[in-house]
C-alpha cells in the first residue's frame, strides 16, 4: 500500500445534497428578472450573506457565466463585472488592492450602477479637462512674447 493511500481522503462532496442554496438563488434571480421586466425594479443579492457550502459559489457562477459583456474596473483595487448568459443578470466581484475578494454580488439590472460614470467624478472631470485645456492654451502662447516681456 502506498503512503498516499493510507491517508484517509476527505471528499467533501459537491453533490446535490449540499447544493441546497443553489436552486433557491436561481429562483430568486428569476423572480427578480421578472420584476425588472415588469416594473423596472432592480435587485442586488449579496452572495456573502448566504451560507454556502464549499463549491456552491463556484457552482452558481458556473451556472450563470458568461454572457456578452465583461468589464474591468480599477478603483481601489480591481473589480470584475460580467453580464451572465442571462441578460439583465450581472455578476459583480470586487477585489482589494491585494486582490482579495471583498464583495461579490449578483445584480439584476440593465447595467450595474458602478459602471455608470458618477456625477461627482464627471464634474471633477470637467474641471480637470478645463484646467488641462486652459493649461494647454497657456503653453501654446508664443514663447517669444514672454521672452520679449521679460
Amino acid at each position, binding site marked *: 500500500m502506498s503512503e498516499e493511500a493510507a491517508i*484517509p*481522503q*476527505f*471528499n*467533501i*462532496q459537491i453533490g446535490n*445534497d*449540499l447544493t*441546497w*442554496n443553489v436552486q433557491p438563488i436561481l429562483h430568486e434571480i428569476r423572480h427578480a428578472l421578472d420584476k425588472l421586466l415588469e416594473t423596472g425594479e432592480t435587485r*442586488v*443579492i*449579496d452572495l*456573502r*450573506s*448566504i*451560507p*454556502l*457550502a*464549499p463549491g*456552491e459559489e463556484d457552482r452558481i457562477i458556473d451556472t450563470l457565466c458568461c454572457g456578452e459583456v465583461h468589464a474591468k*474596473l480599477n*478603483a*481601489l*483595487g480591481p*473589480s470584475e463585472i460580467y453580464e451572465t448568459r442571462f441578460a439583465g443578470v450581472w455578476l*459583480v466581484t*470586487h477585489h*482589494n*488592492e*491585494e486582490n*482579495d*475578494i*471583498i*464583495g461579490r*454580488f449578483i445584480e439584476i439590472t440593465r447595467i450595474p*450602477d*458602478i459602471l455608470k*460614470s*458618477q*456625477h*461627482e*467624478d464627471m464634474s*471633477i472631470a470637467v474641471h480637470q479637462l478645463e484646467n488641462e485645456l486652459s493649461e494647454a492654451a497657456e503653453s501654446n502662447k508664443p514663447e517669444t512674447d514672454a521672452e520679449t516681456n521679460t
Partner: protein
Amino acid sequence: MTKDLSRKDRTLGETLRSQGVSRRSFLKFCAATASMMALPPSMIPTIANALEKARRPSVIWLSFQECTGCTESLTRAHTASVESLIFDSISLDYHHTLQAAAGHAAEAAREAAMEENHGKYLVVVDGSIPNGNNGYSTIAGISNYDMLIETAKGAAAIVTVGTCAAFGGIPHAKPNPTGAVSVSDIIKDKPIINVPGCPPIPVVITGVLTHFLTFGTIPDLDNLGRPKTFFGQSIHDRCYRRPFYDKGLFAETFDDEGARQGWCLYKLGCKGPTTYNACATTKWNGGVSFPIEAGHPCIGCSEPNFWDGGGFYKAISIPTENITKTTMYAAAAGVAAGVAIGATGRMKKSAAGKAHQKVTIDDLEK
C-alpha cells in the same frame, strides 16, 4: 498640531476625495462596507450618504486580561484596503500593543484623547477585568478596574472585543482564580456593544466599528448585547451542513464515512445550535472557510461560559455528568428502599390479617 485638528474635523468623504479617491471607488467601498456590516445591498446609498458625512472619532483601546488574539484577529483582517480606509478615518489614540509610545507617554496620550474628545470617544476593550484582587493585572501601575472606570466615564460607547471582555471568557472559566468579570459587570451606565468570539471574526469587529463610524449609533443588540446583524442567527440555522442534521446524517467520529461525506457534526459535540455568530455566512480568512467547514464542531466561543459548557466534544443533548452511574446507584437504592418500604407494607398487611376478626352472620349489621 493644527494640521491634525483640521484633519479630524474633516468628514470621511472629504478625506477620501482629498486622497483622490473617485466617487466610483467610494461606491465600491460602500458596497464592500455594506457587505461587511451584513446589511442588505439596498442600504448602500444610505451608507454612502452617511459615510460621506462621517467624522473621524477618537478610539481608545484598552487591553486587560487577554491574549492579544483579538488584536491579532483584527490586524490579520483580509479586507485590508477597507480596514485601512477605516483606520485612516478613525483616530486610534491609545492601543498599548500597537502604538509606538510607551510608559508615561502612552498614558499621557490616553488622557489627552479623553480630555479632548470627552463624551464623544469610543472605548474598545479586549480582555476581562480581575475583580477579586485588582493587583492581578495592572497597566502603568493602574489596575484594570480603575482604568476601565476612569476611561469609560467620558466615553460615548464601549465596544467589547472578544468573549473575555464581553462575558469574562477564559479567565472567567472555573475556578476563575482572578475573579475575572466582563465589562458589563462593571460598567452599567454606558452603551456597551458586545462583539464576542475567541477571537471574534475580524470583519465583525470592523463591521461594528464601521457601523458606529457610519451612523454614529449603537446597532440593534440582542439580549446579550450583541449586534443582531452578526449574532442574530445561530450557527446551526445558517450552517450549510444543516440539511444533514434534518435528514439524520451524522459524523460519529472524526474519521468515519460521515466525516468524509461532510455530514452534520452534532454528535461530535457541535455547539452550533446554541451559538450565535456569523461564522457560517461571513466565514474566516476572507470568506475561505469556518471551523465546521474544516470538519470540526463549533465550540460555541461567542457564548458566555463556553469554556465550562460541559465539554467541546459532548453533544448538547447529552448530560454533562455520568448519569448512567447515577441512575444505576439510584435504582439500586430505590430497590433497597422499595424492599424496605414494601416490607413495612407487607407487615401492615399481615398485621391486618392477624387483627382480622372472623365475620359471622351476626356481624353483618351494626
